[in-house]
């Protein structure tokens, strides 16, 4: 039995995940919590948000995110990949910055128009 806090929404339900019982999740208030509980044991993932260098915009950094959750172990690899990027204005919300970043299957996209 593993105890976890669900981080999918601000409610923060306290989950119990039973590894010996097909990763059965209890304590969740919704289905997303059950999915999170199982994933968190088998393959924990996170959405990464950061910034990249920006030229010609209102600010020197443009905020970006991965468009889906990526394995936790890849977070610092993706941060490294972002260091190599410089965007120039104009940038639109949702614009792809890096496709299939570090082989994760997720794209890095811009989250602000600059």
């Amino acid at each position, binding site marked *: 039995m593993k105890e976890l806090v669900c981080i999918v929404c601000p409610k923060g339900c306290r989950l119990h995940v039973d590894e010996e019982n097909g990763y059965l999740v209890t304590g969740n208030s919704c289905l997303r919590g059950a999915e999170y509980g199982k994933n968190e044991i088998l393959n924990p993932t996170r959405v990464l948000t950061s910034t990249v260098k920006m030229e010609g915009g*209102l600010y*020197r950094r443009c905020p970006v995110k991965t468009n889906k959750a990526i394995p936790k172990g890849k977070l610092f690899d993706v941060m490294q990949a972002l260091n190599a990027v410089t965007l120039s204005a104009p940038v639109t919300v949702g614009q792809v910055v890096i496709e299939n970043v570090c082989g994760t299957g997720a794209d890095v996209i811009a989250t602000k128009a600059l």
Partner: protein
Amino acid sequence: MLYDLIVVGGGPAGLAAANSAYEKGLRSILIVERDKELGGILNQCIHNGFGLHRFKEELTGPEYAHRFIEMLKDTSVQVMCDTMVLTVTENKEVHVINTEKGYQVLQAKAVVLAMGCRERTRGAIAIPGARPAGVFTAGSAQRYLNMEGYMVGKRVVILGSGDIGLIMARRMTLEGAKVLACVEVMPYSGGLMRNIVQCLQDYDIPLYLSHTVTDIQQKDGRLSHITVSKVGDDRLPIPGTEMEFDCDTLLLSVGLIPENELTRGAGIDMDMRTNGAIVYENMETSIPGVFACGNVVHVHDLVDYVSQESEKAGAAAADFVLHPKENEHALRLQNGFGISYTVPQQVRVPRIEKSLEVFFRVRQVFGESVISVKDGENLICSFKREYMAPGEMQQIKLPRVLLDKVSGAALTISVKEA
């Protein structure tokens, strides 16, 4: 210039208020914002977690702001950026200043105050020790890092476990800094549980509850060491429990203060507990036609609730201009045991359509408990909760039919652990 509505502040609160006033039929609306662009604090909150209630998806701060800014595009709402509001008067003159037109006095029929919050500083919490470079509020460090592109330090300690501090612990770690500890004076965290998990635990950053910073040392003008001590139940440091941290940066995440200079200047009645204006059910302040919403009224943890509250304020401002009403008698909402404040503080029952939403915070952590609403000794309704903490704003809905039966002058809201 005469406007139907002037909105002070173009953060999520101001944007939602302007939008909803427009939807309710107002056409001459002006938003005045002192920053270079709309969006308020959301522009520096590049992390995700916004809009889960509102849009049923997890957006970043800038994306959430973008949705509201886009809504303004097809409207007649005017925006004045780079413009500071200096004064709002009782008769709704709005004094503004900018570099283009200098000092101007604008007149409005209704005003929405949406100035947000500013961060509590070191001065406001009096930490002993030196005053070197390297001490920042977490929010200014966030703006430096996420917008201006400056890394504020390499070895970091964070004082305060509010959400901004937690978010910055993760952010600085991802950017290559070593975050040594997050230190919290209270026995519980001030931030959301999900942020403790995904910002501290994910990166093995220790959280010291019931601890505080008791000394700051410097070398050549830059922070070099800090001392952290355990505190007792009286929140005073316990001698002999000191720990030294070798760090170059201290981030303060010790709370937000609603930015109410304009509100006080206008002579609006204030609530000592929220540090914001006392408001009625529709977010109207003690001056008829002046409304307040968002963080300037009380500190919110979720922007979704800011939008919800601000739409109410915008709609009410439109109603004030288009359909003036007599002021009815109001019920007071009183804080009973365990409640630190409620918003609204006053309620005009005839103005409630179906139900009244009341936001409140509790004073301490409660396990399974019951929130009761009483008219004198009469229980009018109650609500069950599994867990409540001061860091998480609570919301209850009181149906109009029950409010109609109230005979006293006040309702008391209190908590009892089951």
